[in-house]
């Protein structure tokens, strides 16, 4: 039954036009960024200059792979949280707002099962979103730039690395895949708020605010030593794949913390949803 209910949740999710906005906007933004990188001289000159300073030949690393990575990072910072939170915030609050939740809960399904099935649907959506993000970025970038190695420049995380083409693609694939963990966490946070008696937009805004506040505090230099206490430090664990050598124990620690955080918000959401009254 759970698979049938999960399939139904996916039907509902992908039956809505707004679900596709995220995919469409990702593609549009990627095309815009990559066209600007391809046809404006300034950004490419800046990138070549940095590579030369490090002693690398720019033509080897000004590749489709580097450009795909360069588009993946801003997307993961700005657009991905927005769409993951939008979908998570809609999952229960939208049903409550539109009145379909009363119809569902007139049936013998338990509230816990309903939250669980919706969370699973949200997880699948989150992974699909990052998969499309990674694949479309790579496809568009490779059609505009030559093949070559990966130059990863993420100043805010202190990452400045170069890899050969094969290792670079591996890193890109792994980073894209585990970026799903960030999307799941944001979606789960919005779903948790959505379990309470609030509007879908409020659930989305609360989730985004929580993440922004965490990130703002983390970015204040005085809090640098405490950054492990902020959830956004752990949601950005996927960036550390681009560090050479990759700090796998550090990444594994963040994954464990995210698993705990996700379990906690899911339980809080379940308890909130179980306790509330569902009224028209």
């Amino acid at each position: 039954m759970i698979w049938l209910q999960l399939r139904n949740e996916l039907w509902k999710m992908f039956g809505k036009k707004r679900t596709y906005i995220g995919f469409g906007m990702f593609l549009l933004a990627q095309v815009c960024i990559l066209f600007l990188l391809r046809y404006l001289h300034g950004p490419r000159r800046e990138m070549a200059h940095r590579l030369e300073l490090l002693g690398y030949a720019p033509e080897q690393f000004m590749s489709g792979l580097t450009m795909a990575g360069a588009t993946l990072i801003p997307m993961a910072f700005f657009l991905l949280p927005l769409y993951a939170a939008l979908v998570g915030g809609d999952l229960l609050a939208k049903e409550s707002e539109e009145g379909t939740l009363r119809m569902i809960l007139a049936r013998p399904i338990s509230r816990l099962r309903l939250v669980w099935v919706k969370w699973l649907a949200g997880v699948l959506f989150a992974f699909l979103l990052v998969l499309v993000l990674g694949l479309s970025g790579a496809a568009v970038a490779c059609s505009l730039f030559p093949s070559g190695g990966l130059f990863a420049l993420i100043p805010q995380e202190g990452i400045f690395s170069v890899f050969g083409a094969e290792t670079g693609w591996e890193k890109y694939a792994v980073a894209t895949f585990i970026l799903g963990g960030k999307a799941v966490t944001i979606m789960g946070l919005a779903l948790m708020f959505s379990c309470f008696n609030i509007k879908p937009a409020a659930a989305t805004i609360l989730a985004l605010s929580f993440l922004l506040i965490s990130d703002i505090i983390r970015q204040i230099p005085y809090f640098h030593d405490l950054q492990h206490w902020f959830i956004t430090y752990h949601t950005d664990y996927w960036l550390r794949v681009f560090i050479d050598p990759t700090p796998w124990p550090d990444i594994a620690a963040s994954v464990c913390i995210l698993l705990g955080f996700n379990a906690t918000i899911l339980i809080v959401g379940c308890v909130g949803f179980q306790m509330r009254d569902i009224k028209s």
Partner: protein
Amino acid sequence: MIELRHVTKKFGAGLAVDDVSLTVPPGEIFGLLGHNGAGKSTAIGMMLGQVWPTAGEVKLRGYDVTQNRRDALQAVGAIFEAPVFYNELSARRNLDILSAYTARTPARRIDEVIDWVGLTGRAQDKVRTYSHGMRARLALAQALLPQPELLILDEPGDGLDPEGIHEMRQTILRLRRELGLTILLSSHLLAEVELVCTQIAVMSRGRKVFQGSLAEARPAADWVRLRTQNFAESTRVLRAAQLITAERDGSHVRPAPEIPTDQIVACLVAGGQRVFEITREEPTLESFYLDLMKK
């Protein structure tokens, strides 16, 4: 079929339902009446396990809804005031989705229900193309899918045109006749309740103020509408013959106990009065309801 025992629901400091006990026997069409905010929807919410009672016990089909939701709601269908669905999906897919919250439902059963409510041929259309009446039929279809023994209808006539209301009434009667369902109907439409229900309960400000059969709600007529050549002279004649005990509004008389209307007519004709009309005034559910609300 439905049993509420000393049920109370508070929202913050406000008392929405106050110590209500209610029993709906199997096979009845039971009307739940009350003004806006009387607590009807909250009571229905508690019956369906959507609203947690502050105190008391709610049982459906013999099972406690809060303790054993699965068994209590297994054979229950419900329709709410505004039929809402997943508009971007077809009616058929909506039924697929909603039925899966009860149990795996064979495609044949879904087709059967679509046919029963008269939506064959439109089942693959998106719900956003449906009229209000068609949505009402789809709402009925989703409620019938789990082969219910009990149907809870919360203001199903809201927003329907006169044809829609007529259709709804015929459908409710058909549901009991053909499927033998117990039906709880919460409605503002007193005339509709009067036409379909066998028993009623009236709620006011969170309390149950009446429960009984329609016959109990409409006691035997004790006023007679009388139209004669001269009402004042007619009543004088009837009083002299001790056939009436009261008169009102220049048009109504109250016959003395055990006095039939033909005796009144005979007396008036003998007294030289021409009688144009004489009718026993049947009290309506509306008048009964309004009297209750005044109390």
